[in-house]
């Protein structure tokens, strides 16, 4: 296992190695990854690492991958990325929103290296971005949550109030309301992607508020363990979290990065890689809805699967008007759908959510 600390120790050797002449043709493509959490988080980072392993399996001897896990967002990320660059990696994946500025800075210094940044929006000639339409998955599990709640209170454990998370809260709420007009949404922000104790405390706070079905946008399985203890329902997040099925985990949103990683590494190998923005969803197989368990009645399951099919085919967009903003002002007219540009800057709740938006 390689982590930040062992890598630090060998930094000097790596610098020496990088000053050697460029690798000849036919050498391995070295690919580096930085992760925001440990690969054993059972969620977000775990899924990125599965995709890394899929790349190794697909290309075998042609590639060599390394990763640095548990890299804090901020200045440390820049150091970790620089280390990967100096170690001779020709393609680097930065897999958290908060690595954005660090990746931009390092990409500027190493124009020959191909950078890929997950969930960000800043691009350059050698820096591409990729994201998944998690909100499509949220629409499906929001529908299930709206049907399954008995207290009419559903909860959401948020990480940071960034557009990606706000899209998810809105999408889940809109679709829960559609099937259950009395549903209310409680939101708790933990200001961390990975802090099992705090995520568990957040789940406990929601349960104490009367929430009986909740979703999470954080990376550990701690909230599901809490749900199991309290006898309420939840969903797998980022990873399937199948060990908590059939209850409390009644379904899940799985991030399937492998097809994208395999495609992009293939392009890097044959020289067709170029910087672009990718935003794939259920239809592309990047967002997968995990098995809906027998704890969910058959008609609810059928309803959720019908919605999933409509989203996958492009027939239905989860943000379709008429929709109003939380303050009551108009957002989308009847039949209009939100543009990608609007969604990638989303910073408000839709009408009906009473929780205040953090400043």
């Amino acid at each position, binding site marked *: *296992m390689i982590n930040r600390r062992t890598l630090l120790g060998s930094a000097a050797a790596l610098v020496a190695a990088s000053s050697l002449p460029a690798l000849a043709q036919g050498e391995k493509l070295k690919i580096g990854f930085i992760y925001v959490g*440990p690969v054993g988080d059972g969620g977000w980072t775990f899924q990125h690492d599965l995709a890394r392993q899929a790349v190794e399996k697909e290309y075998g001897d042609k590639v060599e991958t390394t990763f640095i896990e548990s890299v804090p967002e901020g200045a440390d990320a820049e150091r970790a990325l620089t280390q990967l660059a100096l170690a001779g990696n020709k393609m680097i994946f930065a897999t958290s929103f908060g690595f954005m500025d660090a990746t931009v800075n390092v990409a500027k210094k190493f124009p020959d290296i191909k950078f890929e940044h997950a969930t960000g929006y800043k691009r350059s000639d050698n820096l591409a971005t990729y994201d998944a339409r998690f909100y499509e998955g949220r629409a499906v599990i929001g529908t299930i949550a709206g049907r399954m709640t008995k207290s009419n209170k559903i909860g959401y454990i948020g990480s940071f109030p960034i557009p990606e998370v706000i899209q998810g809260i809105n999408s889940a709420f809109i679709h829960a309301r559609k099937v259950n007009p009395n549903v209310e949404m409680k939101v708790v922000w933990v200001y961390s992607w990975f802090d*099992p*104790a705090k995520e568990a405390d957040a789940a406990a706070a929601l349960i*104490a508020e009367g929430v009986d079905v909740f979703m999470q946008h954080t990376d550990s399985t701690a909230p599901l363990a809490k749900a199991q203890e309290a006898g309420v329902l939840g969903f797998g997040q980022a990873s399937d979290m199948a060990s908590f099925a059939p209850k409390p985990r009644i379904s899940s949103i799985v991030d399937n990065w492998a097809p994208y990683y395999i495609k992009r590494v293939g392009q890097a190998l044959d020289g067709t890689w170029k910087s672009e923005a990718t935003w794939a969803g259920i239809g592309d197989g990047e967002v997968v809805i995990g098995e809906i368990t027998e704890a969910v009645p058959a008609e609810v399951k059928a309803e959720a699967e019908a919605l999933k099919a409509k989203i996958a085919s492009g027939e239905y967009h989860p943000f379709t008007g008429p929709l109003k903003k939380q303050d009551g002002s108009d957002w989308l007219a009847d039949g209009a759908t939100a543009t990608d540009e609007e969604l990638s800057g989303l910073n408000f709740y839709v009408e009906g959510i009473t929780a205040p938006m953090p400043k």
Partner: protein
Amino acid sequence: MIDPIAVFVLLLGAATPILFAALGELVVERAGVLNLGVEGMMIGGALAGFASAHATGSPALGFVAAAIAGAALSMIFAALTQFLLSNQVATGLALTLFGLGLTAMFGKPFEGVKAPSMMAGPFGLNLMIWLGLLAVPAVWWFLMRSRAGLILRAVGENHDAAHGLGYPVRKVRIAAIAFGGAMAGLGGAYISIATVLQWTEGMTAGAGWIALAIVVFAQWNPWGVLAGAWLFGGVTVLQLRLQAAGVAVPVQLLSMAPYLATIIVLVAISARQKFGRSGAGSTPGSLGQPFHALR
């Protein structure tokens, strides 16, 4: 409407891990040793406790194993600092890094498995919460009222004088370090067995550092440690509860409250010392200094 009793119950749970770890560190520092490896010993206890509880189905055995694991890790620190006279700050930091790495490696088989249910206690609070609360007066009594506690404090205040009086400085310190390790292990195991209910790498997420800050905030007084742990646990729980209830709270401000309180306490104390209203303050006189008996 937020039920204050429900918040208090959640608070007790959130405060317990840092209460254990901070009480242990308090005894260590009172003996004149600064062990910054609390986080490493906590994560060691979290894994050992969880693994044992999972294997035996008994959370009680899990906590016993956690205390042993924490104490065992602390003995590495004791050997290095007490016999080889290494720098305590550097050694403590190394112990934290070592603990995090070691548990990440040995913890892999325990990812995704579940903990047995916790031991219930009176008033719906689990036994470890009660044990943590009882440890506060016990540590206070030991330090302030028992002869052994007096010797421990003498060793921490001035190790040369204690040595001159014939007290075994090194033995006292090793015992204190082992106690600190065991308590940190219990605190860590509370996180894995009672709060999060599973093992995840790096799961203590800085609780050990908070425990260290609380010891200073408490001015090396067990009751102060209780106040600090409640303040920290209370802020954590209350801000989450207020959010769930839909109240707009400045989360960032609340999150920094315990640290702000620590700084204010430190400023107040140094001001008091400067203007001479009290003596030397409550920092143990020999804190962090290596001891080497010349005769």
